[in-house]
């Protein structure tokens, strides 16, 4: 039974991580996600630089970079594009790490029911008091594109989270 479990896990890993996952629908706009880590390497000039590497496994405490790429494969501009990414339950969002050009980034602290700017997010602390939400309280991240996406247009958003 245990071996069957691991076989299923292995299949899931193959599905999810051997290549970036691509949406299977016939949508005009496709989305792919990648899981990376930042590593410091020496380049050919001997200078240190940060590079991204694919992640297949990670240890608790490690920061992971999530990259979401979107592409308009259709023949018409796509409007009102909104990207939503829940922070995996076993991870903690790294404050200030969400980015994406021509986007407005908002967050949810209630499981994705509502979204707002960080300064307008509040939670109830262990003493029952309403306090400003911290990055570790964020459950979802949302990027609203401020411009339409022309055919063949693409973009990237990203965030970091730490494995609990």
């Amino acid at each position, binding site marked *: 039974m245990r071996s069957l479990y691991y076989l299923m896990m292995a299949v899931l890993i193959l599905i999810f991580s051997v290549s970036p996952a691509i949406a299977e629908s016939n949508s005009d706009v496709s989305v792919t996600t990648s899981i990376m880590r930042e590593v410091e390497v020496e380049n050919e000039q001997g200078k240190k630089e940060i590079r991204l590497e694919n992640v297949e496994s990670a240890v608790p405490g*490690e920061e992971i970079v999530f990259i979401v790429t979107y592409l308009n494969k259709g023949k018409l501009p796509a409007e009102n594009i909104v990207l939503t990414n829940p922070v995996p339950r076993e991870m903690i969002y790294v404050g200030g790490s969400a980015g994406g050009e021509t986007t407005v980034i908002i967050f949810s602290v209630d499981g994705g029911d509502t979204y707002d700017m960080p300064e307008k997010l509040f939670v109830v602390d262990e003493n029952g008091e309403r306090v400003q939400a911290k990055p570790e309280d964020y459950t979802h991240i949302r990027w609203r594109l401020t411009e339409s996406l022309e055919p063949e247009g693409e973009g990237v958003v990203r965030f970091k989270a730490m494995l609990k």
Partner: protein
Amino acid sequence: MKRILILMIVVVAVVLLAATGWAAGTDAGTLIQNTATVTYDVGAATNLSATASTGFIVAEVLIVNVAPSVLLSTVAVIDPLPASDQRLYFSVQNTGNGSEAYALTVSNILVDFAPDNPRIVIDTVNIGSYDGTGVGGDTAYSGPYTIPEDGVIWVWVINDILDTPLADLDTGQSQLVATHTYAAAGTAPGTVVPGQGDDLGDGPGELVLGPGGGTFSDTATYIITKTSVQVSKSIASIADTVSVPGDQPLPGAVVSYLLTVQVLGSGDADNVVVRDPIPLNTTYDPASLFVNGSAEDDDFNPPGVDNSGYDGGNDWIEITLGTLNAAAGAQTVRFSVTID
């Protein structure tokens, strides 16, 4: 190869961070899945959407925290030697994120002396109470011990201190070592072992050796405590009833004695009681007893509370000083007798 080196560097940094910042963390072997959704409008079509997911596996980190108990990290060995079955107490906590088996060994360290004949006893019941090896929950260690993630075992390390010439405050140390199966000599911290990343090495992910490369240890200390009690007695004064030439007092003369009690060494002397028989042919002077300059009544009332006074049945003075150490300084007892 370069990629592996980079991964190891990253992992070492994270593992060292994790060693201080996290307890068990997410279970080894857990699949972490990330899902992104895009919604958009195209022309008259609204609320179109697409979703994509990808994931990774949580690797297992080997981290064990070996630590002597706060109360038993330094144990006083009371002279005289030899002293057998001297116990130290350790905790061994699995702060990694998978259940693993660890071998326990003891390495005795010569400082002023080396403890001898090390034994390991696992304390499973009545934690913190030693019942005797093989008694109650105290079980002699017999091989690698499986510790679940976040689990802790309590360990007695027992040594004998041999009869060798040692001074007060001399020390010897005992090191408890917990070693994982993969901690072969020279295995570096951060080493990644593929395909071993779950409980007892049967998972699909990676196993990462923690700081120490899978070998973890800490040390506790035995300290020799030599304690002695020194008592001196002198005649403080003699008051004759009449003034006559000569050195020898006459009957009726009052002789005042001074006793001094002093503890030497680093330890405590417990239950210190001074008894001094009244010399023959003299009689204790009632109400003449003073302890550390304060008058002490002659009786022993209430019993069990007033433990100092003059015992007429035995014709001695008895002073209970209790626990004393060198820092308490000299204790003085004065009393007087009259020559019959």
